[in-house]
């Protein structure tokens, strides 16, 4: 554990990313204290520029505080990112493990199934799913999970395929351990490192996907998300540039931080690859 942290720390980018991420999580956690009430409340006149009338980042077309929207939006974005990633991981890890461990016909079937999902352009598919199930936070999370699991399945399958023929697994099989026990206690812990790295990136792409859906008007209308803020600001961009700029910066920082942390995790878990990648950057 200490070794892991030492290797992680050596990547300065990852460290910066971690700091940013922690700050955003804190912002999300303390949003109700910093900006009490609902971000939907009309606080002032519409289209107030940043810095005036107590509006740090300006107000939008209905006079709502953009800063409050960003703070409260952080909670939604992080939550959506986390939940949909967990869902995608559940599907992907299960399918990948089954395919990689059992091999043969099962592997073939699962791989065809995965290929099928990867042939449909993922964003269009997500849009279609959300439209069918009418846009709510649940359908958004579901749609993101459905289009995000294939890469997980592939990675997990690859890991399981290589680990399956290792001695300690064969030993466990000979000892008569049940297949499920082998998978859960022997193989999976050793396959964790690529999954961990992947999940950081998946949270990032889930946040991007959710913001894109909200931007197109397909988000949950009861939740003020960053994508929604940008979408609402799009048509009045000439009148109020701040409505589009600041929420975008928030998304950028969060996704950047997640990517940096992901690379740090990768370095920490695969030190040999880290050296090859040109060291800490």
């Amino acid at each position, binding site marked *: 554990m200490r070794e892991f942290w030492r290797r992680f720390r050596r990547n300065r980018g990852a460290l910066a990313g971690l700091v940013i991420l922690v700050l955003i999580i804190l912002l999300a956690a303390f949003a109700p204290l910093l900006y009490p009430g609902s971000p*939907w409340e009309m606080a002032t006149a519409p289209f107030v520029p940043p810095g005036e009338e107590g509006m740090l980042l300006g107000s939008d077309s209905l006079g709502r505080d953009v800063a409050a929207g960003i703070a409260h939006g952080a909670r939604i974005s992080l939550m959506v990112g986390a939940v949909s990633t967990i869902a995608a991981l559940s599907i992907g890890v299960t399918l990948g493990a089954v395919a990689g461990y059992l091999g043969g016909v099962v592997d073939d079937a699962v791989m065809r199934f995965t290929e099928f999902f990867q042939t449909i352009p993922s964003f269009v598919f997500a849009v279609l799913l959300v439209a069918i199930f009418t846009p709510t936070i649940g359908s958004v999370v579901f749609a993101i999970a459905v289009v995000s699991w294939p890469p997980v399945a592939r990675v997990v399958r690859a890991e399981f395929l290589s680990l399956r023929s290792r001695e300690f697994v064969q030993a466990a099989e000979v000892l008569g351990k049940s297949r499920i026990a082998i998978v859960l206690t022997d193989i999976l812990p050793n396959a964790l490192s690529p999954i961990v790295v992947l999940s950081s990136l998946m949270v990032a792409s889930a946040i991007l996907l959710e913001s894109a859906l909200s931007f197109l*008007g397909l988000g949950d*209308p009861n939740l003020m998300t960053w994508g929604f803020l940008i979408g609402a600001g799009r048509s009045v961009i000439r009148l109020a540039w701040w409505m589009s700029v600041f929420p975008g910066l928030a998304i950028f920082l969060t996704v950047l931080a997640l990517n940096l942390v992901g690379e740090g995790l990768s370095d920490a878990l695969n030190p040999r690859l880290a050296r090859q990648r040109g060291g800490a950057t």
Partner: protein
Amino acid sequence: MSLSRRGFMAAAASAPVLMRASEALAQGIAPRRGGTLQMMLTPEPPVLQIGVNQQGPTLVAAPKMFQGLLTFSPALEPEPVLAKSWTISPDGREYVFALQEGVKWHDGQPFTAEDVVFSIMKFHMELAPRARAIFQLIETCEARDPLTVRMVLKQPFQPFLLMFDATAAAMVPKHLFDGRDYRTAPAVQRPVGTGPFRFVEWQRGNFIRLDRNEEYWKPGQPYLDSIIYRIIPDSQSRRLALESGQVLLSQTNDIEPFDIPALRQRPNLEVHTAGWEYFSPLSWIELNHRVKPLDDARVRRAMSMAIDRNFIVNRLWFGVGKPATNPVASTTRFHDPSARLPAFNVAEANRILDAAGYPRNAQGVRFTLKHMALPYGEIWTRLSEYLRQAMRNIGINFEMESTDAGSWARRVGNWEYETTINFVYQFGDPTLGVERTYVSTNIQRVTFTNTGGYANPQVDALFLRARTAAAAAERQAAFSEVQKLLIEEVPQIWLMELSFPTIHDRRVRNVITTGLGVHKSFDDVFIAG
């Protein structure tokens, strides 16, 4: 039964051509012949054949090619178009129209009374719900001679003439439609009408081109050489096209409301909000009375009182439009100005709800209602967001549901909603456009009917009396009473009398001259030098 001339009420036939020209002359400008008027059309319609399609853009472009028997002034007085004059019998059941002479279809065939009979009794009866509902009342429709049409109604129907504008029942050529499937006839793709402009070219996604009909029946008109409708899907592109002069006129949904103030500042542009008197679109919060507690009139009254309609008009619509005061718009006939909604009063609304037995819980919420925004543009989303805040002030939680055009129409049609927003045309007379929302006989599973399920026998009786009475005075009495009753009951929460601004270059004249605004033939429109 023969009806002598003396028994007829003669209708005054004014001469609109001379009137318009003299108006122009009064301004010191003689109409100038020539020029191409570039406009926009949003969104691109599927077809231009009126009747086959009744969506907004078709109603804007088609009247340049197709005409009705009449049109209507801003005060909704009938004016002659294809009908030169008309008479109505004293009992209000017989209408005789004398048609203009020398009118030809764009393909050269003469326009006759047979075309009128066909258009009304077959074409529109088959295709158009609005026309069908009224033309069912016609007992006899016959061509007395090639220039005279006689219609006898089963019972008197005072608003009958309002159905003869081009947008309600345009005249279509019998020889191109009779005996065929109206929707797939070749004429649908190459429209043939009697109007001042003829169809020339349609490049999908790009433009529609109409050229002057050289054989137009009004001498000297149309003044314009041609009309081009540009298809520009993006609202910012449209605004730019208008600002830069690439198009000279925008109408209906072309320009977003928040762009209006900037365009008003432009010295070369004029912004008109008139021209919607016939349609009089009225927006409201549509309530499903099958959902408790929306069946309680006190709740509805309180909700209505908690809405600041002035804020909606000024902040959301940037001053375009008027707050609604009445289920009948102020520009529709028989509007009773003495019947008004109570003023905006949040405290009073809260008192009503407290007294009605809807206490607030620990979070301050009395009850929750689902709300579907109208999926036809951002401004409606903003409206729903404002309404959510307004309802919070009286302890009602609006849970928003997102929909698109497909699901909205289906859910409203199938009564699968709690509240939503809607806006509906009134068509000049409450019997035509208002009654359908409130009478229990029109509860159907489709939009634009009484989908809310409101049923009040008193309201039904009043609307029936207003519908069947032959004299205007009697109808006014019934309408006044029903307006007062509906304001008590608030079956829908009326919000705004909408107006879709027409913005055009100052050089373009005679654009808004009737109660139909841009939905007219443009035969008297010209571009000054």
